[in-house]
Every structure is written in C-alpha cells, then in structure tokens.
C-alpha cells in the first residue's frame, strides 16, 4: 500500500520521511497548519514546529482566537453547557448567528427544561437580541421573544442595556428607552441566566460590551455566558498549545523560544508575504487546501489517498481512524473527551507521521553536528 508520494510519484515511506525532513531543514521559515485538533496530532505538530523553528497556525484558528483575545483582555464569566442546560431559566441569544455557530450545542442546551436550582421545574425564557428576521423554531418547542436590533447596532444596544441594568442614564440608541427598561428588569429577574453568542461572529468590542453586561448583572443575580467558538478542534488545539508553550495559537518558534502573535503567525499572511517558504499542511485532501498555500512548496498530510490534480512536493496519507482513544475537545462537555476506539489502520496516524519526520530531522541535525 502506497502511503507517500514525492512530486506525484509513489515513494517508499522512509524515503518520503527523509525527503520531508530535508525540505523542512532547508526551509528558511516553514509553516505548520491545517485542519487538526486532536491532542496527539497537536502535540506532535508543536514538537515538530519547535524543532524546525517554524510557525504554527490552525485552519480555523480565527474562530477561537477572537474570543480568547477578548477573554484575556477583559476576563469573563463562562458557563459549562451541561450546567446551563440544567440550571438556566433564562437564555439571551445575541447576534444573528447565535444558533448557527454550534447548532448541536444549542440543541443540547435548549432541549430540556431546567431541573436544578431556583429555576427548577419552571419554563425557560428565551430572548434573542439582534436575531435573524425569521426566528427559527427552538428544539423542545420553546418560544423566542425577539428584541429586534440591526447587527451593526448590537454594541450600542448592549451598552444601553448595561446602563439600564445598572440604573444609569443612557441616551438615544437602537432600542427605545422603554424597551431597554423592560429588558433590564427581565434580565435582573433571571435566577440563573446565560448569554449565548457566536464568539466567532461578533467583533471584539461587541464581545467586550457583552461580557461587561454579564459582569454587571452578576452584581445582583446570577448570569453566565456560553460562547460558541464555531470550531472545537481549533479551541482544543489552542488549549494544547497553551499548556505546551504558555500561549494559545498562533505560535512561532523561529527565535528558539515560543512566541505568540495572532498577526505575525497568521498562516495566510505568512504565505502571502513570502515570509514562509514551505507549508506543512494537514487535511483530508486537495479540496481542503486553502488558496493561500497553493503557490508554495507543500508537504501535505492527508487522510484521503486520492491523487491531487496539482501534486504537492511530498504527500503522505495517514489513518483516518484510530484503534486507540482519540482525544478531542468537546463543546458539549466543555473539556476533552476520549472517542471510542475505531478500527486499526495500516497507515500511520498523523502524530506517528509527524513524529517520524521529527526523528529524521533530529538525526540529520546530529549527523551534521558530528
């Protein structure tokens, strides 16, 4: 079974590993990126990137990183989905895509009525500030109370609401004064409320205002937040990077120590600017490869063995299933979860492949040093 190709030609696996290590070694600034997020692959990718002095990004990192940026600027209340499902007697969705970002998570939270705490046994109120024009039916058949607000006006509406909740004066804005006063009273009456939003869909100032509202509400009652990142894999990779390097993605190891910079190590920017001269990309196949990387020398690590129309410099196919437990971040659980073992594969796992390249890179370095 062929698992490696060099310039489109089938190659011995070991030869392709050596070639990949050689390419990385010769590279001025390699970029390691793609659609990954399980713990083993992320660990291996970080190890290899650190060894190679490269940059590390993740295909959907932006979905997680905007939220993390705000979190570290302002702090936050954050709720576990499981607790919100059982305890929240009021949900306030914010923004037009609050349900779309993670429909499974929204279903999980909305399906059952609260059965813990002061709101136990009662109905759950669901309000939606700045929702879509046609509000969807909720799982479990609940009714949504719409508070209309244009997407561009969300921040102003939230700031009015903060003033209303805190009993401060506020001027004219996207919502009428009596709407703000009524809504402020409603929110303060929640026993345990949760503000649900697509973190990947709101800008950072919107998010700051929204977190400020929750902090204000907690002066009197209990509110928390449920940020939907839109990509648990990216969030999981960011978590692994944080305990490994001290920071979430995006990372660079070019100066011998991990550095974190969302702009500097943005893979698309590195490719467009010519700062990186080699891409190591993990994905399912050719269709997964972003346009930004198509003009650069490429080492592709894919789960699909289908030939590419435009073959990369080196291509590996790796296992798409695991005989062991694969660990991924799970948004319903709010932490890492071990997936049940699947079928064994003749192909190496992504982590085994990346470790193999790292070993070859290490051997080459030692040979040169000797």
């Amino acid at each position, binding site marked *: 079974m062929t698992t490696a190709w060099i310039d489109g030609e089938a190659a011995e696996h070991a030869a392709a590993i050596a070639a990949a290590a050689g390419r990385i070694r010769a590279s001025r600034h390699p970029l390691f990126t793609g659609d990954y997020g399980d713990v083993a692959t992320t660990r291996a990718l970080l190890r290899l990137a650190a060894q190679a002095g490269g940059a590390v990004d993740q295909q959907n990192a932006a979905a997680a990183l905007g939220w993390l940026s705000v979190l570290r600027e302002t*702090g936050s209340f954050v709720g576990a989905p499981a607790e919100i499902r059982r305890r929240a007697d009021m949900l306030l969705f914010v923004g037009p895509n609050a349900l779309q970002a993670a429909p499974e998570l929204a279903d999980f939270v909305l399906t059952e009525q609260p059965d813990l705490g*002061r709101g136990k046994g009662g109905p759950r109120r669901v309000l939606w500030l700045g929702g879509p024009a046609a509000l969807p039916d909720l799982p479990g058949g609940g009714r949504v109370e719409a508070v209309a607000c244009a997407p561009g006006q969300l921040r102003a509406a939230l700031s009015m609401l903060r003033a209303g909740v805190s009993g401060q004066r506020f001027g004219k804005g996207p919502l009428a004064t009596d709407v703000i006063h009524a809504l402020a009273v409603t929110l303060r009456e929640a026993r345990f409320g949760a503000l649900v939003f697509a973190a990947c869909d709101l800008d950072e100032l919107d998010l700051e205002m929204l977190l400020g509202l929750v902090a204000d509400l907690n002066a009197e009652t*209990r509110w928390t937040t449920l940020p939907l990142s839109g990509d648990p894999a990216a969030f999981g990779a960011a978590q692994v990077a*944080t*305990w490994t390097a001290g*920071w979430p993605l995006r990372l660079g190891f070019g100066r011998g120590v991990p550095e974190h910079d969302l702009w500097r190590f943005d893979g698309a920017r590195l490719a467009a600017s010519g700062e990186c001269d080699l891409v190591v990309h993990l994905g399912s196949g050719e269709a997964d490869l972003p346009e930004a990387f198509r003009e650069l020398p490429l080492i592709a690590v894919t789960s699909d063995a289908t030939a590419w129309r435009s073959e990369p410099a080196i291509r590996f196919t790796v296992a798409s299933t695991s005989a062991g437990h694969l660990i991924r971040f799970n948004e319903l659980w709010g*932490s890492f979860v*071990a997936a049940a073992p699947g079928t064994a594969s003749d192909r190496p796992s992504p982590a085994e492949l990346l470790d193999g390249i790292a070993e070859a890179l290490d051997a080459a370095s030692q040979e040169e040093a000797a």
Partner: protein
Amino acid sequence: MLTCLKGGHVVDPVAGLDGPADLWVEDGRVVEAPDGPRPDRIIDCAGLVVMAGAIDIHSHIASGHVNTARLLLPEFHKAFQARPGATKLSQIGWTAEETGLRYAEMGFTLVVEPAMAPSSALHSHLELADIPIIDKAALVVLGNDDVLLSLMRAGESPQAIEDYVAWTVGSARALGVKTINAGGSAAFKDNVRAFSIDDEVPDYGVTSRAIVKTLQSAVTGLKIPHPLHVHCNNLGIAGSADSAAATIQSAEGLPLHLAHLQFYGYGAGGKRGFSSEGQRLAELVNARPEITVDIGQVMFGPTVTISSDELRQFAGRTAGSPGKYVIMDGEANGGGVVPIDYKETSYYSALQWAIGLELFLLIKDPWRVFFTTDHPNGAPFTAYPELFALLMDRDVRARWLEMLPDAAVKATCLTELDREYTLAEIAIMTRAAPARLLGLPDRGHLSPGAVADIAVYRPGEDKAQMFASAAWLLKDGEVVVENGAVTRRRFGKALALKAETDAAMGRRMERYMQDRYGLPAHWFAVPQDALGRETPFGWVDMR
C-alpha cells in the same frame, strides 16, 4: 546498574539517619550495601546532604483552570521570556514542561495537583502526562456535584455514597478526594453570596458540614490512604478562622486534612478589621492529632489565584491585579481565576505572610504540617527555597520583618518565635510525612526497597540557595539533575489508586448521565492509552 552515593550526610528521619552514610541504588530502588560487586558508578557526596526526593502535596499544576490562568495572563509569560532571570513570574513554572524542570532542579520527585474536576479529569491527566521528570498525582473534587448532593438529599446509604466516591476516584484516576467549599459553589449558582459550615445548600437541604462528614466517612470507609482533603468555607475573609476551627472540630477523631490553612488564619480585630488568628489555629491543630494541614504560605510579588471555590473567587474578583478575572460556572464546582499582587508594603499582604509563618512555627509536629504556597495562589512553587530559609533561620525572618509595615509587624507574634526548623524536620515535612500522608510506603525515605528518588544538596549558610539547586537528583535511580540543571529529560508516572468500582454504580451513573444530559458516563473516564506515554500510571494500594 549499581550506583553508590558515597559519603554524604544522609538525613532520613524514617530510618533514624542523620549523619554520614553510603547509599546504594540498583534497578530504580535503594538496595542494601552489596557484599561483592563494585558499583558501576560512584557519586561522591562528601560534604553534601542526601535526602529522599521531595514531595509536594498541594500545587495547582495541571487542570482546565490552570490553563485558563495561562490564557488570561499572556503578559506574565511574555515578561518571563524577555527577562527570565529577573522577572518574579519567571518563578512560576508556567508551562507543563517548565513545571517539571523547575521542580526537578529543586530536588522534587512527586507533585500532587489538588483540584481535578471529575468532568475534566482527562484534561488534567493530559497536562500531567506532559510534565517531564517528576511523578505526579491528582485529587478529585467532590462536594458540589449534583450526584453526591442528590444521594445525600435522598438519604441514600453510606454504601451507595462509597460506591459513588469509588467510581469517581476510579474514573478520574485519582490519588485521593478533595472537597472545596463543600456546597458553596452549588449555593452560589443559586445566588447565595455567603456560605458557612452549617448553611444549607438550597434545594438539596444538606449543610456544608454534612457534606464534609459524608465524604470523610466515605474516604475512611473505602480505605483511601490520604484523608479527605478539605478546602474550608469562607477562604480569605476576615473571620475565616472560625470556619477552619469549626471544620477542625468536625473531624471527631477521624483523619482530616485542611488545605492552605494560612488563608483561614484571619480574625476581624484591629482598626483595619484584619488580624492574626495564627496562634489560635495552631493550638487547635496541636490539640487534634487526627488533623493534618498544609499552609499555603504567601510570599511577596505578583501571582494568580486559581481555585475551584467559585463563590470565594467571585467575591475576590474586584481585588484582582491586573483587573481582570474569569469565573467559571461549571457543573459541580466551577471555579475562578483572579490575578493578585502581594505587596510587602501592604498591611494585609504582610500579615498574610506572617500568619503563614506563625502556623509553621507554632504547629509543633512536623509530621502534621506541610509546606505549600498553594502554588500559585500564595506564591509560585519556586519560592519554596526562600520559605525553607525563613523556617530554618530566625535571622532571615528578622531581615524580612524589617521591610514590612510596622502595623503588620505589631499584629503578629512572629517576632517572639525563635524556633528554627532542623534539617531533619525539613526532611520530615517535605519527604517522610507527605509520603505517609499519601499512602506511599516506598517513598519519602531511603531504606532498602524505597523508590530511588534521591535529592542531594550542597549545604551552606544560605539555605535558600541550598534548596533552590540540587547538586544531584536521581529519579527512579537515574541521574536527572546535576548542579541544579536538568541533564536527562524523561517522563514519570501519575500515581493513582487501585480503586475497586461497583458495577451497579457504573450502570447507575450511565443512566444518570443519559437521563440528565443525554451523554455517556464514559466521558468521565481517563483511558490509559489516551495519554501518549508508555506507562502513564503507577498504581497505589488502598490501605
């Protein structure tokens, strides 16, 4: 390989050794001096102090909350990287990698993460697995979880509760059980803002005291070696000594461990409404042999508080420095991350520092008091060498006291305390006693059969320097540190109890999880093959 550590001053209180001796090591264990064979390696320990590897029973090194602290405070890590030698937070052991290296360099071989949430036990173990060199372990947190509180509300049998505790310990691969402000986090989610030992958790109708007693009974009944590890109510507030005193009195002859007692050493006296209750708590501990405590010493400088006491973290959020925080409404405990700066110019910080030392020096039995800074809550763990110097040398204490506000110095009895810890007492507190407390008979001493975790120090007047930098460290008989620098990077194990779990409880938990969440109970589990290490666990017997 046969190794001889030759001619060192061996301090092993378990064996009654405090003088020159040779130590022999083979296949990862301390062995009797052999009759015939010559050692493959001799490590010259002449003039050096030889002890078992140090054990830290309470240090927040690996959890979702710890990672949230890293996410919240990127500036700390950046400052450290720019000036690693000069930045206070360079001491914090910030990544999993640095945690292992820094502990090893100080002669530590086992560290316990004291707050592993059952639902994120896998996360904790993933981080633990990435900490090199040392062995690790974790205590699983119960006491704010719906299952336990519901079992208690329903008046279920002690056996059912033991089965649940055993199931949790087994799933989470824990070395013991901790409760954190028992019932307080659950109450806070119902908007309760103050919660004491006899307050009831709304809806469940059980008190904090009942939760502690229930868990204490279960831990004792299951023969878990480490006593229930208790983080009391009302941490950090003036008057918190009453909570600790009530908890100590609730032990009723059964073993109970109180965590970071310093944070409860506060009265409400004086014109600032904040006074020392160190003497009172020390007397209580001295009088109750079933009680063990660790201190949670405050040292000066910026750090971050990481706690699963959501209620108290919420209350302390406004004092954060820098002014940002994360409060997590988890199922069960949740928690909070609040950065803090203990300033030596502050009356409050200075008195906290003094109260910790009062407790260390007034609690008489070194087998029952444990050094900790509650890393990173009181200070980073790398402050331990300075702490040992403070305990071993009253002149060092006097120099520190000179720098503190007069009002704080007047409010403490520290100036009257002449006690200086001996090396043997340090060895008890940092080696022998932790091993005994955790139920690890082959650690904490250097008798034949012991795990060959051996720390060798270069003695000197400067005790902080001595303990900051081990001359040698052997982990499982292998040299991993020389002259304070790691020479071999390897991975230790996570120690976990051999917990026998009841199949019926497993089925009951599966039903509970499906009924309440529509999720599988096996998501609590930590599979061995998930951690990316050949031998991730070392198994520890129940008593």
